[in-house]
């Protein structure tokens, strides 16, 4: 009986092996069609318009490869603290297969050895071309110390967004000429901008209270105010560090830039602006209560969306007065803790291909590739992208320092203290210089 059972069991095993071997002969067609069938790619991203556009495109990648892309969308403030513990996990043990890296984190993540070098994958790839990216983007969220760790995803170069209907209003132009004895023109420096913003802060309906502010501003600590102030500093010729990482912030220039920033905050911005984050400052503009806003260049399509804005087709974008605003951007990266680096790389190849990047730009995305910026369909829909390409090229990035989040924290604190009146601008800049020196990579 036992013997018979063993024979039957043996036959069953052999039969099932033959069957599975036969089945395998049919498999390659499926796996070559959908190489990542059954694989889930976990991605962490920020809740911004470009993430929405990627989500809208996802189904194509999933159909092509069979992979499921699971995007976890987080508020910016929560991303760093959630990413770091995952990045410190051992190889293949992290929760995220693919991440997007803000330019503030590039040096920190790379010095810690958390990101995978992509040079070999790029060299082997038939799809990825690095020379199509704007050099400023590649320098910021592409390479680090000679190796490529990221592919630029989207830019957030800051620019001056302003109400063209107010700017071209003959009554406003007349009033400006009567007050200053010169024609109303776009400001070419920060002092001119602050003067214009103060002029534009007006009571337009005659009820005795100001209803349009010259500048919508974001004084909330740490990154909203730090990012905004850097536009003032850079455009007035100041810098925190040079390319070698030495502190080069000039006390005089820093104090002057901070004084103009505080002047605008107190005399041209809404009274609540010292506590405003991005959402409140954006709402002020979208409600039609501000003449201008130094913000991300890609806010123009958002402000032209009737569902989100009451100033549709009234906004224009130009470079930050003085010409050198803050450049920001995000890059796609594969952490060393990624459990599915090959699937993650396939996703990067797809999402950064010309067709997909162009489609994203047409949805309102912020390009990083020159061929997308110069594409005729993109320019037909967004003629201002030729200006934006120049803005992205001319803007200055946040210093490539591994303790950049702490530098932002210090910057945000001293600016906020100066606005609150608990610190003079001289003391604020002196503390900033000291802390930049303490925190720099040595």
């Amino acid at each position, binding site marked *: 009986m036992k013997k018979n059972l063993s024979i039957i069991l043996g036959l069953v095993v052999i039969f099932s092996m033959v069957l599975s071997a036969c089945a395998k002969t049919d498999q390659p067609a499926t796996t070559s069609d959908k190489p990542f069938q059954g694989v889930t790619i976990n991605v962490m991203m920020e809740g911004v318009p470009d993430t929405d556009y990627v989500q809208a495109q996802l189904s194509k990648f999933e159909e092509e490869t069979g992979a499921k892309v699971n995007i976890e969308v987080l508020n910016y403030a929560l991303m760093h603290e959630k990413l770091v513990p995952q990045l410190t996990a051992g190889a293949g043990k992290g929760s995220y297969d693919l991440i997007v890296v803000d330019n503030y984190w590039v040096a920190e993540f790379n010095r810690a050895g958390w990101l995978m070098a992509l040079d070999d994958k790029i060299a082997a790839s038939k799809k990825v071309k690095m020379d199509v990216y704007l050099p400023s983007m590649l320098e910021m969220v592409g390479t680090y110390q000679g190796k490529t760790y990221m592919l630029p995803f989207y830019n957030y170069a800051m620019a001056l967004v302003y109400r063209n209907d107010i700017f071209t209003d003959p009554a406003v132009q007349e009033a400006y000429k009567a007050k200053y004895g010169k024609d109303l023109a776009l400001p070419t420096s920060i002092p001119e901008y602050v003067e214009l913003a103060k002029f534009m802060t007006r009571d337009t309906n005659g009820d005795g209270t100001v209803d349009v502010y010259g500048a919508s501003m974001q004084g909330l600590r740490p990154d909203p105010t730090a990012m905004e102030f850097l536009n003032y500093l850079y455009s007035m010729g100041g810098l925190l560090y040079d390319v070698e990482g030495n502190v080069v912030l000039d006390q005089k220039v820093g104090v002057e830039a901070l004084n103009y920033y505080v002047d605008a905050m107190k005399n041209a911005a809404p009274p609540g602006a010292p*506590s405003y984050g991005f959402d409140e400052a954006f709402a002020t503009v979208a409600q039609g209560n501000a003449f201008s806003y130094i913000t991300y260049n890609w806010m123009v399509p958002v402000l032209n969306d009737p569902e989100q804005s009451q100033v549709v087709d009234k906004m224009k974008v130009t470079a930050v007065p003085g010409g050198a605003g803050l450049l920001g951007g995000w890059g796609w990266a594969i952490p060393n803790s990624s459990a599915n680096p090959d699937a993650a790389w396939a996703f990067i190849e797809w999402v950064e291909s010309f067709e997909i990047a162009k489609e994203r730009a047409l949805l309102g995305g912020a390009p990083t590739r020159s061929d997308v910026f110069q594409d005729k369909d993109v320019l037909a829909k967004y003629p201002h992208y030729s200006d934006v390409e120049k803005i992205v090229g001319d803007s200055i990035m946040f210093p490539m320092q591994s303790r950049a989040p702490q530098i932002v924290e210090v910057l945000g*604190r001293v600016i906020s203290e100066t606005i609150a009146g608990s610190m003079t601008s001289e003391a604020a800049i002196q503390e900033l210089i000291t802390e930049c020196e303490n925190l720099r990579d040595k």
Partner: protein
Amino acid sequence: MANNIFFNSLPSHDRKTAKRLVSPAFIGIWVVVLFPLLYALYVSVHDWILSQGGIGPFNFSNYPDVLKDPLLINSAKNTVLLTASVVVLEICVGFGLALLLHNKQIKLRNVYLFILLIPMLMPPITVGLIWRLLLHPDLGIINYMLSLVGLPQPTWLASPVLAFFTIIIVDVWHETAFIILVLLAGLTSLPDEIFEVAMIDGANAWQKFLYITVPLMTPTILVATIIRMISALKTYDLVYILTRGGPGISTETISYYIYKVFFVALDIGKSSAMAFILLIVIILMTLVLMRVMNRVEQ
């Protein structure tokens, strides 16, 4: 465990069995509590910046260093002021409302109680986000209502003093429900006979309150104070959502500062030292209050 009334009331044979049965849970809790505490203590006397590799060399100077940190001292001052303000206000308001809800002549008491408890059911992050919208100087409903009756419309979170005051108000709105619940439970358990005797003796409402309710409620009030004080000393969520410690450093609390040293600076050593100091302060303050409570009870 040995002093527990429940255990002492058991015969010695049952007492041993009860102790054996409870011991796994007891050991489990101590492992869960003690291990993180000891690990935090170990980390707090070492150099360890997460982005610069693993745990570094022994460094006891983390403790003197953080105690000299002017930002930690500022946040400690803010925390003490905030804790004192919210605890006093919440006990006063909570006791007043608990007395009203205890009054059997008031109709629909349970409906009022339910409404008053709603804030307690909400997470602090949600409370912060809701209030941030309500307090928006131009687009918020609070300033809109004030404008309707011709009152000035403050910039609630934009000036240092007002922002601190705003955090106190929002915290009182959120946390008073807890005090109401605890004190109402205390009031309900008071014996009716004493009040009846006092009434026969001709005591008026004020005398009953002052000479009966308050002394009998003192232990309950102290327990509520201890619990609320401990949680107020750890205030973090509201500050994070409403002000991020600003304007300037006017609303930075100690827990929020420790969070930044940990998650922004990734300085695990110093942030653990700060957290340990906070723990010791909370334990000491709790011991003092418990001693006061024991004296009151005696």
